[in-house]
């Protein structure tokens, strides 16, 4: 959407001239691809299935452009015929009249050409819509598919925003380039060549005059663009800073208020905002100069063509209609040049976008299971870790030789200070991450021999960060088991002590959770995830600090439900509460990522190690208080 130069003296304005080509993006910095050629090649393979359609697009684009290029020349002929006829009449030549037969002939030809050109343009655009949309549809599907196959480490190591932007913005970039710029590129080149040829057939001298203005406009544009780029960069940076400040102040609003920093925050905002203003108006003004400049150079060309053309007609070197045609051609001339220049940038950033998408698609995928060993049912939940070794980064081993055995129905408590890597055990159990040595067996079979989906079906998990999706409460609970009946869902909610609060909501089980599920409290969300796990009815449970945000009284109830659920099931509990830990059959004490101690509560106390220390600091303190109080 741009402010276009007023090169509107041209006839048969081609529709392709109205796309993204002349956007206000002029003079903005362009992102570049690292490996242009390879990425382009690969992108072309995506177009390959549509080669017939694309060939058709090429053909129609070339034809429709050619028609619109011929039109001014024909119009010029009509004008000449008119002129000669009227001149003859003025000069009083006997029987002189305007040759209307010729004119009607030309007019009809013109009309036919225009109709054909429009129809062809429509066909070309219509085909392109289909091709583009199908192609980006496939691309999106591929990305979505890919995301189900990359290992969890991918999500843990990459920012969400980055992945999102590859899947949305980058795909959009490709889509709009395909839809607009590609055909524009074709038409621009054809137009440019066609115009030069037509101009040459009219008058080589006038063509030369027009071509002289060309380097002028390129030079001018370049000079302005390179200057404005600096300001654009500054503007971009400052805008980023400003947005960062807004985000930070708004999310920390409570603290800003509580500590009375509103004024300071506003002052800082104003300071950045003023800087933005200064780089902003300069960027805008300078980049805005491109169009007046181009239009001025265009006008100079126009004047020269008019004057020289006028003289030439007077000398009889060319005919009057040729001036009209020529003016139209030279007016059209600048447009494709700017467009080609712009499209070059557009293609650059498109390839860069494609490269980012391909990077995502090339991510290594999860290792598939070695054998498709079926899981014998019923599952008893006998879990063993045999010489398990693991590391997140190759050079820093976390777990070197871990051996544990958990009998069916036992409870394992995983304890340790925050950040001790308790979730690592979960990651290994569920095969979110691959072991680097040893094996984990469930009922005697190596988890690597099972299909991941079969393995994960054995587990029920309640994580610390509650994840709910945008949908009804019913759907969120039913996520634990497809085809769960209404009664099952309600029973699960009741078992998780969620039924009561759900019923107090205006729409009950049909309440739609918004995107951040901010219409529920954290505790309520937790209850829903518990209900979800209960509904899934797994053989092995993983409770990841699940109840830490639920208030203690509700927790008592949940604990009861959990205890009931844990009966006969092997359970791994990541817990903060020492009272829960004491009853565990096995305690794994973790620190700095690895398991440093394991055993029962009594055994560990006897060891007088890290656990004993941890326990005593709490135990000694609370008994001291109660003694004082008593």
């Amino acid at each position, binding site marked *: 959407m741009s402010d276009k130069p007023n090169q509107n003296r041209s006839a048969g304005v081609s529709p392709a001239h*109205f796309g993204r080509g002349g956007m206000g993006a002029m003079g903005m910095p362009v992102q570049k691809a690292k490996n242009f050629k390879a990425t382009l090649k690969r992108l072309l393979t995506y177009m390959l299935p549509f080669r017939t359609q694309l060939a058709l697009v090429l053909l129609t684009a070339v034809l429709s452009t050619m028609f619109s290029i011929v039109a001014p020349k024909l119009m010029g002929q009509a004008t000449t015929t*008119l002129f000669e006829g009227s001149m003859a009449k003025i000069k009083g030549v006997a029987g002189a009249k305007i040759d209307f037969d010729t004119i009607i002939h030309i007019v009809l030809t013109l009309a036919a050409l225009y109709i054909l050109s*429009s129809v062809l343009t429509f066909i070309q655009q219509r085909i392109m819509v289909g091709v583009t949309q199908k192609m980006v*549809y496939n691309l999106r599907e591929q990305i979505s598919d890919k995301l189900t196959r990359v290992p969890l480490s991918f999500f843990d190591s990459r920012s969400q925003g980055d992945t999102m932007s590859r899947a949305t913005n980058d795909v959009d970039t490709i889509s709009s380039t395909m839809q607009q710029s590609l055909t524009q590129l074709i038409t621009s080149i054809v137009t440019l060549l066609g115009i030069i040829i037509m101009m040459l057939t009219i008058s080589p001298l006038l063509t030369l005059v027009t071509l002289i203005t060309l380097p002028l406009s390129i030079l001018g544009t370049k000079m302005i663009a390179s200057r404005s780029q600096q300001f654009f960069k500054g503007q971009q940076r400052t805008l980023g800073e400003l947005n960062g400040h807004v985000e930070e102040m708004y*999310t920390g609003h409570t603290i800003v208020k509580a500590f009375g*920093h509103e004024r300071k925050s506003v002052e800082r905002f104003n300071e950045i*905002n003023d800087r933005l203003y200064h780089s902003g108006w300069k960027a805008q003004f300078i980049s805005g100069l491109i169009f007046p400049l181009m239009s001025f150079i265009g006008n100079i060309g126009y004047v020269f063509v008019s004057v020289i053309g006028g003289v030439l007609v007077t000398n009889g070197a060319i005919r009057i209609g040729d001036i009209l045609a020529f003016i139209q051609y030279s007016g059209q001339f600048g447009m494709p040049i700017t467009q080609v220049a712009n499209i070059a940038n557009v293609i650059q950033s498109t390839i860069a976008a494609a490269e980012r998408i391909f990077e995502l698609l090339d991510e290594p995928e999860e290792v598939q299971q070695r054998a498709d060993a079926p899981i014998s049912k019923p599952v008893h939940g006998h879990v063993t870790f045999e010489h398990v070794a693991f590391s997140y980064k190759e050079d820093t081993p976390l777990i070197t030789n871990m051996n544990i055995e958990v009998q069916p129905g036992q409870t394992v408590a995983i304890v340790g200070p925050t950040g001790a890597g308790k979730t690592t055990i979960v990651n290994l159990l569920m095969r979110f991450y691959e072991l680097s040595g040893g094996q984990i067996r469930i009922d005697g079979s190596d988890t690597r021999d099972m299909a991941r989906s079969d393995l994960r079906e054995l587990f029920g998990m309640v994580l610390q960060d509650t994840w709910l999706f945008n949908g009804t409460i019913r759907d969120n609970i039913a996520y634990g088991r497809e085809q769960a009946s209404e009664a099952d869902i309600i029973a699960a909610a009741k078992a998780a002590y969620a039924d009561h609060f759900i019923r107090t909501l205006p729409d009950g089980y049909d309440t739609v959770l918004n995107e951040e599920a901010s219409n529920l409290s954290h505790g309520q969300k937790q209850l829903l995830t518990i209900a979800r796990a209960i509904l899934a009815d797994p053989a092995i449970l993983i409770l990841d600090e699940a109840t830490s945000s639920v208030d203690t009284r509700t927790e008592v109830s949940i604990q009861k439900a959990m205890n009931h659920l844990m009966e006969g099931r092997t359970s791994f509990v990541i817990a903060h509460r020492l009272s829960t830990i004491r009853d565990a059959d096995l305690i794994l004490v973790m620190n700095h990522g690895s398991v440093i101690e394991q055993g029962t509560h009594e055994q560990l106390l006897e060891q007088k190690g890290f656990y004993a220390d*941890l326990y005593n600091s709490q135990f000694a303190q609370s008994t001291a208080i109660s003694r004082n109080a008593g």
Partner: protein
Amino acid sequence: MFKLFRLLKPYRLQLTGVVVFMLMQSLAQLYLPTLLADIVDHGVVNGDIPYILKFGAYMLCVALGATVCVVIASYLLARSATGFSRDLRRKVFAHVESFSLGEFDKLSTASLITRTTNDIQQVSQVIVMMRMFIGAPTMLIGGVIMATLKDAKLALVLDCIIPILAIAIVAIMRKGIPLFKSLQVKIDQINLVLRENLTGIRVIRAFNRSAHEQRKFEKANTDYTQTAIKVNIIMSTMMPVMMLVFNLGVVAILWYGGIRIDNNDMQIGDLMAFIQYAMQIMMSMFMMTMIFVMIPRASASGVRINEVLDTQSVIRNSDASESLSGGGSAVEFREVSFSYPGAEQPAVRGISFRAEPGQVTAIIGGTGSGKTTLMNLLLRFYDVSSGQINIGGKPIQALDLESLRSRIGYVPQKAVLFSGTVADNIRYGQEEAADEDVRRAAGIAQAGDFIAEMKDGYDAVLAQGGKNLSGGQKQRLSIARALVRKPDIYVFDDSFSALDFKTDAKLRAALKAEVQEAAFIIVAQRVSTIMDADRILVLEDGAMAGIGTHDELMQSCKVYQEIVASQLSEEEIA
């Protein structure tokens, strides 16, 4: 959106300039074909070369004049458009900073961020495009006038084409705009599914629902693609149709003009000029369709910005607000009740208690029992619905907001840190704090050790939101921030839950030794954290279930007993 344009007022002089210069430019641009007509009709027809040269020189001057006009207009516009955006941003930001929590709940933080950043950007874009808004219609009208002056009869052709084009554009737009809107909804849906997939990856994989999520994505994708195809087909219909109508119009002009020349009603140069006017008219109509596309998008943003500006914070300083000085720091809640807007049940009701200086007052209770609400009321993030909160004997509504909050050291449930160094973050509590004060506060908060372990110690730079710290570390820094303030009243809103038992115990011991004069209000989940408090307030469902010391409550309060039983083993309670 037009309401926002009031902010353009300071720039009215510049904007008038923009309009005037754009008009002049349009006129100059339109004058060129007229001069060309003169060259043809007088110079070429008569073979008068000096005349041609003279008029050529005129044309150059006019072209130069047009360029000068545009440059001046661009300059004025760039300054006023960016000025407008700056003013709007400043206004919105300052306004949002005056909001209390109620307004943040209502509009949501994420949405406020988008409104302050993206939406303002959208509206600014429109102002930047003003050159086009002014340029296109002037060209259109100017073109029609010039064409009519040249030959009123021939202009009838234009008078036919323009309405036909206008009707075509409006018809296509009316089909297109609703589709545009639904396209936006559908792209949002794709983003939503995708975002959920990224955040919930563990759950999705744990429940084996990848296939389900993929189907969900496919559905959103198909839905979007279908609409996108429709939208794009409409857009690709528009251009050829417009082109066709217009080009056929030009052909008609040529033919009809020929007849008129034949009848000696007009001259050949005039016809040439006329055709060029028609081109200019066409071009401006193209641009005007772009305006139609942009305006709805920006006006949606405008509405959202106005919504922010129209929201007034209910919490403000009363006219007679006094600054709080001396008067003691005893906090008193008297029959306090509060309901969130629109809620059926009050969040808290009938709460009365006193928190004396030098004493620890603890609040314990279940999720949703109203603990945090009480703290928010004390900080006057919300105003009580009934009852009264006094500090040092004065109701807090009568106090200056800033001086009220300056006396409270607040540690929120979720630690919020800002980008900057560790020291900056601690100093957030008290800007003039000396280095040793900062260190001391960090020491009490048990943050000294881990800060020392960081690469640059107190000068270590935190990423936005302190992402490079663990939850416990962030919490300790946020405690240090409150400590450095040396306030009369401390409010710890469940601030110890992110700490492990050891650190929790050490911190409380250090705190007790250091701060004796202030009133402590501690909201907690763990009984062990608050067992030794001077007074424990037990909340249930927003009402008081008991108040007293640990021992008293163990005797009298059933709710408290249940809480304790769930957390401590019997030997500890004994």
